[in-house]
Structures are given as structure tokens and as C-alpha cells.
């Protein structure tokens, strides 16, 4: 049976009815119309469904909607003109765009949490997503650019 839950998505409180078994991915897409997070495997393998959960990247296909109660969920629709979005456009870091929301949410969390991430950390994080169109070169350019600028910003002058 569906239950009413209150979720906080992109800073807005939303009261919705969900099945206990409904994944956050399905709820976001079907109940809230936030289709930026994509199903690519619904098995935790591809990262297309990545959202931020209290600021950390999370695969929404592996998260139950009810687990999100009392947490902050951010989807790609909640990011507006962030450096990583701009960098993705500028660096041509996507083609079909299907993996893009997931990659951006992952990169965004990385840049926020670990602005000084080293190459190994970047690799470790970004390997949880698959892009089938690009050869990853442009995605690397985008995240590197954002982290570099962030490091400059964060350096006290």
C-alpha cells in the first residue's frame, strides 16, 4: 500500500504517496516529474541515476524513496548554472547526454566535498558512471577545470 511521505528535493518539501518498494529513481521521475536522473541499468552499475543525498552522490536506483525521508535530495534539476554544468558545455563533455545528469551530480559532489581531490580520487569517484558516447577525455577536462578553479578560489589571498 502506498504511504504518504515527505521528501525534501532540491530544497522543496514534497508530500507524496509512494509504495514502500518504490525506488527513489522511480519516485523522482514518475511522481515528481524530475526526469533528469535516468535509468541505465537499475542495478547500481552505470551511474546514470546518480543524485546527491545530503551532498554525497548516491545511485537513486539503489535507494528506496522512504530512505530519503529526513534527508536532502538534490537532483540535476536543482543545479543551476554551476561551474560543472558550464564546464560540461564548454568542454563538449557529452554527446547524447543520457549519462550527463549522473556524471554532473557525481562531479558536483566531488568538487564540493573534495575540492583538492587528486587524480586517484577523481578516478575512483568517476569510475562509478558509464559514458558510452565520449572517450571520457572531455569529462576529464571538465572536472579538472572545475577543481582547478575551485582550488584557486579557495586559496586565501
Amino acid at each position: 500500500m502506498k504511504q504518504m511521505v515527505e521528501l525534501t528535493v532540491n530544497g522543496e518539501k514534497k508530500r507524496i504517496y509512494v509504495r514502500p518498494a518504490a525506488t527513489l529513481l522511480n519516485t523522482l521521475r514518475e511522481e515528481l516529474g524530475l526526469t533528469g536522473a535516468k535509468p541505465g541499468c537499475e542495478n547500481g552499475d552505470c551511474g546514470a541515476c546518480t543524485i546527491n543525498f545530503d551532498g554525497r552522490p548516491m545511485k537513486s536506483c539503489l535507494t528506496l524513496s522512504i530512505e530519503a525521508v529526513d534527508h536532502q535530495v538534490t537532483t540535476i534539476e536543482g543545479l543551476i548554472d554551476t561551474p560543472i554544468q558550464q564546464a560540461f558545455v564548454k568542454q563538449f563533455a557529452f554527446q547524447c547526454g543520457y549519462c550527463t545528469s549522473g556524471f554532473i551530480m557525481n562531479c558536483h559532489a566531488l568538487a564540493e566535498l573534495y575540492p583538492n581531490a587528486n587524480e586517484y580520487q577523481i578516478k575512483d569517484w568517476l569510475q562509478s558512471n558509464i559514458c558510452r558516447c565520449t572517450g571520457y577525455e572531455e569529462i576529464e577536462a571538465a572536472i579538472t577545470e572545475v577543481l582547478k578553479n575551485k582550488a584557486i578560489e579557495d586559496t586565501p589571498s
Partner: protein
Amino acid sequence: MIGKSVPRKEGNNKVTGAAKYTNDFSVAGLLHAKLLTSPHAHATIKSIDVREAKKCPGVRAIVTGVDYPILTGSAIEDRPILALEKVRYFGEPIAVVVADTEYEAQNACTFIKVEYEILPVVNTVEEALEGKHPLVHEEFKNYTQVKELRPDPTRNVSNHVTVRKGNINEGRTLSDITVEIDVSFPQSDHAAMETRSVRAEILPSGEVYLHSSSQAPFTIKQSIGKYFNINENKVIVHTPLVGGAFGGKAAIQLELIAYAASKAVGGKLVTLTNTREDDMVSSPVHIGMSANVKLGATNQGELIMAEIKFLFDSGAYVDEASDITTTAALNCTGPYKINHVWCDSYCVYTNHPYSTSFRGYGHSELGFAIERAMEILANKLKIDPMELRIKNAIKPGDTTPSQAPLTKGNIGNTAKCLERVKELINWEEGQVVPISDRIIKAKGISSLWKTSMSPTNASTGAIITFNKDGTMNLNVGVVEMGQGTKTTLTQLLAESMKVDESKIHVKMEVDTQTSPRHWKTVASTATFMAGNAVLEAAEDAKRQLKNNAAYALRCKPEELEVGEARVYLKSNPKSNVNVKDVAHGYKYENGNAVGSLVIGHGSFMMNHLTKKDPQTGKGVPGPAWTVGAQAVEVEFDTKTFFYKITKAVTVLDVGKVINPKGARGQVTGAMCMGLSWASREGFTFDENGIVLNNQFRTYKTIRYNENPKYIVEFLETPQSDGPYGARGLGEHGVIGMPAALANSLSAAAGVPINQLPIVPESIWRQKRGGVYDINKF
């Protein structure tokens, strides 16, 4: 505008989650369909009992094969919409359940009872050719052939293509030296990130609406019309942005099931989206191949003859596989001049998932075979593999294996591509260089070529309309699936109209009711075909603008020129009028209006293509050949046989680069896909023909940072009939990668590696005969 890295027109929508794909849609009342698929690769269906399933909550209808006893297929009608009487591959759709929600449909699937009688499986092309019984298609002789095929049904062969050029006996006699190799790779998957998705609705007016993540909306229209006996005019297909396709979305499959599902619920709107598991095996896959190649040459390294046999694994149904079999045969030698060529190319049924087009369309497959043979020939001749390739590179004046004449206008410069690759990969330092006591650096190279085999009358069109402010709307029937064609076409129009590309709004979605018919978005032909149509439409629009402007400027249209959003007198540009003031006719100050609304239209049709001769293959299969050369550098661990792909090089003769960053992205993306295929992709079948790796957990693709450093350069030998000289380039980066990787690893390991995918274990098997010897570590 040409030569400028214009960011994608739809870019901002894609980085904000606003871009909509087929499955990003829901509405109250939308019904959901799910497939029940076969757990066996070959079995007779004795009965299907849906009674329990029908009682499940939310279920509205269940459709099985007997409801639509129709056979379908683009080359031969061999494939039922849902399995009929027997299943021929693991994952074959058997039934579709329509329910209020997806999980209810899924749940009901588990209550359908199917009784099978298991049959022996045809698990390899070799077994198939031996005529193993029961045949995959016992009823073959009753099937309707749509294209011209040469089948041998008793041996599971759906098409046998022969190429006969020169005289093979003479070739054998003239050859001082011959080499022979066998190569093979299993079927694999396109694995586009968006799984295939369709939505269907049938209105009381009889109109059928489909939304599909497809490369071929106009073919869907045709197929629905044909198989369900509906007037094609009533079928309207929409294709929004597509999340990657790579050839896999040109086949028509789910659309037919979705139509049947909608029909079963009185025409209500039904959506059907593949799970990843279904997308990998139930829907069509990338072809597999076994090949035998014999090359003959003089002692000086001049190629004399090629004798080639391709066995393509079409899986259970033919779909595009028969044409891939043909293309591979007609271009079997790769970009080398060889006077005596025999090729026998077979399209073979097995109890595997069925194969359709894949990026490269036969050329990466033939390339792997030929380029491995070239390497072995070079070794045997003790000639540098690079020199051997340069020496034999095909040129204008030569002919292809199908005897198509090559000219300056229809082929680029292969030798020059090779020369440049030689520099970029630092070939001079040596093919194999030890860098520590256990790590070896090794390089491998490959040439490539590709033509775009299309129907001899493939066509397309473009329509340009104007907004009040003089900006333009561009409408073409090409699907945007990530290749960036819509942006490229915008650039071509901007160049022709001499305006900034921001002044052009290009329609992303294809709507078969309003977009001009475009054959299919395949074969890297969109820029070439639609590009020409756009340029013609631009000329048409300019002509009409000049007619209107002639009233305003009181002159003859011929005295006018269009550019920078103005129409001006050639002799005196100061005398001009804004495009926006003449795009909708012209209004004099007193209010009188003259002229007409400007609607530019243009079209393009392939020409000079000819059908092939059934015996010799003689004919002109495609409009031009794009050529290139590639290289790979690996670091190989001689103890564990692990390797890292450190560098990959492509030099491609693309005629003209329209969007440099976009073009590079297409090429590096394709290189990545080629390396991923060659190094880790491929279906693993058990002895019963069951695919063991139909999800990303077990089917690995290259991930972030596993990619090499890319080096990409373009040559610009213009294609005479390409828009501003441009050729297609979307597929080519794939083509030489498997061979270049295999050549590098064969050199590094010192054993011939002729099977894909090349994983450390397969090198170990080759090197140690599969024996674990502790002393060797």
C-alpha cells in the same frame, strides 16, 4: 561558421536534466508493458498459459505470438513479433503484459506458464554450416525475401555473397609468399546508455502515434503500416533526443510489440521500455564473426591476391546481418590495392541473439581480419608493417574489390594518413620497446576504410522557415542521438546564409508528419545527405528573399546578395533591406504588400550507386570511401599479461572539418568504443546458448580513466559532392582499433592474437597453452 567548435545547440538542456528522451514521459492513465522472454536458446513452445497472470492486480491485457502470426524482417521475413511455436534465442520475447504500472506488469510476467521442449542448440557458426539439426529455421523456404539474397537453408545460411575480381589462380601463381590466418570474435552489444523505449497509441480516427528512441522513424512508419495492414499515412512517429544508438536503434522491434500491446487495450497509450538485461540480448546486438584470410604477395611486398572467407553470426534472425555480410564482402580487402580477390561471405543463423547494424557496419569486422593478416604477412616478409601498408595503400585510379572505380573525388589519401600516424605514434623508436624488466611498450597499427552502403535511392530533405525577427527554423528528418548532426547542419546553414548560428533554431525532435522524410540516421550519412539538402534549401530561401527584396530595392533579384541578415545590392551593399522585412513578403510604407512568404526547401538523393552483380559483386555500393589510419600503444606486463592502453592515434581524411571539437569527440568516442570492444566486450555463451553476461555488472565497458591518451588529426581531401567537401566521420574511429590493439599485443607477447576480446587470460592461453606454470612467474 565552418571550422568553428560551436557548442551543441541542445547543450544547456542536457546539462540541466531538461532534455527529454522517449521514456521521460508520464501521464495519468499511461499503461505499462513488460516482456516475458525466453530462458532457453532453442525450444519448441508446447503451450503458454496466461490465465493466472491475467488475474494479477492491475493487468489489462496479455499478448502472445499466436495473437499476431506475422513474420517480419528488413531483408527476409523470418522473425515473429513475439515467439511463435518455437524460441530461437535466449531472451526472445514471448509475451507482453500490459498493466496499470510497471511493477504490476513485471509481477504478472512471473505468473505466465510456458511449457517448452528443449531442442539442441546451434551454438557456433561452424556448427551451423555443418547443417546441424534441427535447423534454426526449418521453414525457411516459406519465408518472403525482401532483399535479394542467396540462401542455403540446409546449412543455416541466409545469404552467401561472392566477390570475384581478377583471376585467383593467376594471383596464386604470381604470389611469392602467402600467409593464412583465422580470426574470430563473438557477438557483443551496442550498450547505448538509454535502453530502447517506445510508446504507442491508436486513436479512434485510425491514426497510430508512436514515440520511439529510434534511428529510423520513417522506417517504423512503413513497418507498422506493412505488418498491421494500416495505411502508412495514418502512422505518425515521433523521435525526440536519443540516448545513444550506434546502429542498434535502426532495427524495428519493440515498436511492433508496443503497437500490439496498445491494440490489445483498445488503443490506449502504452509504454514499453527495455530493462538493461532485455536491451542487451532480447533486442538486436552487434554481429559476431569467424574469418579465414589468405594473402599473397611478392617478395618485395606487393600484394597480389586475397582469398577471404567471412562467417557472420547473424543469430536467430537476419535483420541487417545479410547486408553487413554484403558490405564486408564488397570492401573485404580494406584500403589496399589487390588485383585478384575472391571473397565468400556467409550470413549464418545460430541460436544466438539476432544481429543488426553496429558502428562501422562490417568494416571494423573485415578490418580486424585483414589487418591481422597484413601484420603476419609483414612479419613473414620481414618488411616493416608500416611500410607494407604504405606501399600497398589504395589510390585514385585503383578499384575496390567490387571493381568500383576510385577517383580523387571519392576516396581520400590512405598513405598520407599512415605517414602521419607513423610520426604521431613515434614508430621510428621501434614496435616493441622494453621499459623495465617486466614491462614492454608495444605499438600496433591499422589502416581503415569505410563506405556507406545505402539503398541506391536513399533520400532526405530540409525545410527552412523564418520567424518575425528574421531568425530561421530548420527542420530535417535526421535523429539527434549524440552525434551532433543538428549542430553541424546549423553551422552549414549559418555559413550559407552568412549569419551567426545563434540565429538558427533547429528542431531536435523528428516528427514524421512534418519533418521531411529522411532514409535513416545511419551509416555516417546524415551530414553528407542532409547537409546537401540544407544547402539546397538555403539557396532556395535566398532566391525567394531576393525576389521579395527586389520589390523593396526596386531592382532585379539577380543584382542582389544575401548575408548578415540582410539582402543587399551586390554593386552597392549600402542599399539593402533586412531579411526580417522581406522574409514574409514585403510591405510598402503605404501598407501594400507584395512578394510571398519565404519557405526554403531542399532535398538530396544518393546517385550513381548501382546494384551489385550477384556472381562477382561488381557494383558501386556507396557514394565515397573515407580512409584513415590508426595506432595503439600498450604497456604489457610480461608476467601477468595485464596491459594498459596508453595511447591511441587516429588520422582520418574527412574532407572538411565542420566542428573541430565535435569531430574530435566523435572520433575519440568511437576509438574508446572500439578499444572497449576489443579489450573486454563480447557475449559469453554457455553450452546451451545462454548468454551469461547480459548486464553491466558482468558485461564490462571502458570506464573513466581506463581510456588511453587520444591523438586525433584530420586530413582534408575534399569529397567532391560533400557539403563544403565534408565526409561522414561518426563511425570510423571504431574501425581500426581492434586490429591495432591485437597487433600491439601480438608484438608484445610474441604470439599471434587473433580472437577478441583480448583479456589477459586469453593472452595467457595463447602464450602458455592455458597451462599454469609457477616457474614462469
